[in-house]
């Protein structure tokens, strides 16, 4: 591209540096809206929240700088640990199940059957529905007295459950809710599946491999980049679960579904303790960052990129 640009500059009869300067200015102008937005709504707030986290700001009250007090308070805060635990359990339940179901769905939807497009649409649509609406829908499905969930249990002769009102079942109920939205991860897996070289499968067929061998030795290894991607996105997403919890249980029963972002919301907007909420938010950021970094490190061991250079 540089030679083309150079010939362009010669065609214009301008000196190289003035053209380049013009290009640089115009380039900066193009990204100026984004730059302004970045400073105003990302970098600025991030710096501000570091400062905020070290104050006891409560909106209508006078503000005091309290240093690392908020972080000390965190350690004693039962709800902090509870909400962190809730979120970790939820993530630990949801992410593996989500990856497995999305992968299975993708395998299923990869066959060349008639009307496969219709099936793909059916699997994908739930994932684009508004979270508010699906939260209400599943609240109703999980209704302990009249809901579909207990109706289905009744059909197979199992006793009805309290679902969202049961301390032990509440988080799994949320997991079920979230699993319904496997559509977008499934599409990513599907794309990955369709990118696997069919020659590999043919070679395996010649060697007499059965389905399972082909799956474990070819499909899964070739899918590891996509798997890694969905893993990261899945974890980052599930750590920030908010809307469904706010609508369906508002943290109950007995704080069993008080997820971390919901807790931050309560502190910041219900109790107006913005300083404390900022400290909480930064803890979340650090946790997510660490988790992501660890995964990237570990990824070298298990992710196979086809274009990998020999080490």
């Amino acid at each position, binding site marked *: 591209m540089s030679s083309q640009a150079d010939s362009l500059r010669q065609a214009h009869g301008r000196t190289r540096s003035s053209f380049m300067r013009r*290009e640089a200015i115009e380039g900066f102008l193009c990204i100026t*809206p984004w730059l302004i937005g970045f400073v105003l709504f990302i970098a600025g707030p991030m710096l501000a*929240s570091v400062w905020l986290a070290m104050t006891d700001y409560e909106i209508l009250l006078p503000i005091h700088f309290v240093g690392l007090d908020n972080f000390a308070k965190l350690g004693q805060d039962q709800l902090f640990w509870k909400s962190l635990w809730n979120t970790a359990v939820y993530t630990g339940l949801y992410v593996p199940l989500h990856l497995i179901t999305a992968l299975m769905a993708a395998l299923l939807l990869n066959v060349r059957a008639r009307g496969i497009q219709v099936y793909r649409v059916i699997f994908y649509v739930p994932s684009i529905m508004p979270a508010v609406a699906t939260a209400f*829908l599943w609240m*109703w499905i999980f209704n302990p007295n009249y809901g579909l969930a207990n109706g289905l249990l009744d059909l197979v002769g199992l006793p009805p459950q309290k679902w969202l009102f049961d301390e032990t079942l509440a988080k799994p109920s949320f997991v079920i809710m979230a699993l*319904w939205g496997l559509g977008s991860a499934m599409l990513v897996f599907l*794309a990955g599946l369709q990118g696997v070289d069919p020659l590999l499968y043919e070679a395996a067929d010649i060697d007499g491999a059965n389905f399972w061998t082909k799956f474990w030795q070819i499909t899964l290894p070739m899918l590891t980049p996509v798997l890694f991607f969905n893993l990261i996105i899945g974890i980052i997403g599930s750590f920030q679960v908010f*809307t469904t919890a*706010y609508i369906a249980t508002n943290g109950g029963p007995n704080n069993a579904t008080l997820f971390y972002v919901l807790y931050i919301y309560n502190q910041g907007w219900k109790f107006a303790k*913005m300083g404390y909420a900022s400290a909480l938010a930064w803890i979340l950021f650090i946790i997510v960052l660490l988790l992501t970094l660890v995964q990237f490190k570990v990824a070298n061991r298990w992710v196979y990129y086809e274009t990998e250079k020999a080490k």
Partner: protein
Amino acid sequence: MSEAKSMASPASSAGMVTADKFYQRASVRHALYITVMQILLLACSAVMLIPFVWLISTSLKIRGTEFTFPPVWIPRPAVWENYYTAFFASGLPFTRFLLNTTIITVASMVGTLFSSSLAGFGFARMRFPGRDKLFLLVLSTLMLPEIVTQIPSYLLFRLFGWIDTFLPLIVPTFLGGSAFNIFLFRQFFMSIPYELDEAARIDGAGTMQIYWRVIMPLSKPVLSTVAIFTFLASWNSFMGPLIYLNSLENMTLAVGLRAFQGLRGTEWNLMMAAAAVMMAPVLVVFFVAQRYFIQGIVTTGFGGR
């Protein structure tokens, strides 16, 4: 499969009946495989669709009759008036919510399409110092949990006096929008041959003219994809409107639905009808623009979030 059979015939006619039988069995096995797959597909699709069916089923029940156990699937009679009641006679200004949501969504789409395509264009076509590092910065913002910036942003908007207006939800989209939209645009623009730019420059076009007259008309796929994702993000968004929109007249469908729960908490038939009304436009948009949805997901791996 048929070639395999015809290949087998000479062999069988030479007396190797076993080879013929092998291919016959293989085609039977294949048919069995396809049938099993079809059954699985049907079964799993049914499972995915059940919540929707239950949604509609409940929404058509007469008040009080949704409280039956075991669950009734087909309500008799089917009360389509519930939709009217939920929307117009609920005690909440749902038409207003719809209007607000539409305004915010359309404005967000315009803002994003403009600023993200411009930024993508800058990163794809222009050369300026620090360009690639800045692009890495753009990408890194994807990993940032929203809540970290939301608290100070809220306070900033409070300073501007923008609380309880649409501005906090719209203005940021005009200032760069989301990182993956910029990413999408950049990737797409990089696939457009530079010769077109060159030809335009030789004809005397300035950079903005190239952007507007050369690149944009060729970008329908990525424009559609980003438009759809922005539509989804805005229409479905909850926390933003929850935080910034306080008074009833300014609420969007998302927050309005929540308010509905407060008002008509136990009237599940109406709640389901209202939920269905909020879901419907998303379905319509999806079916109209299916191809670009899939394209966008596969390119970025995101979608609908």
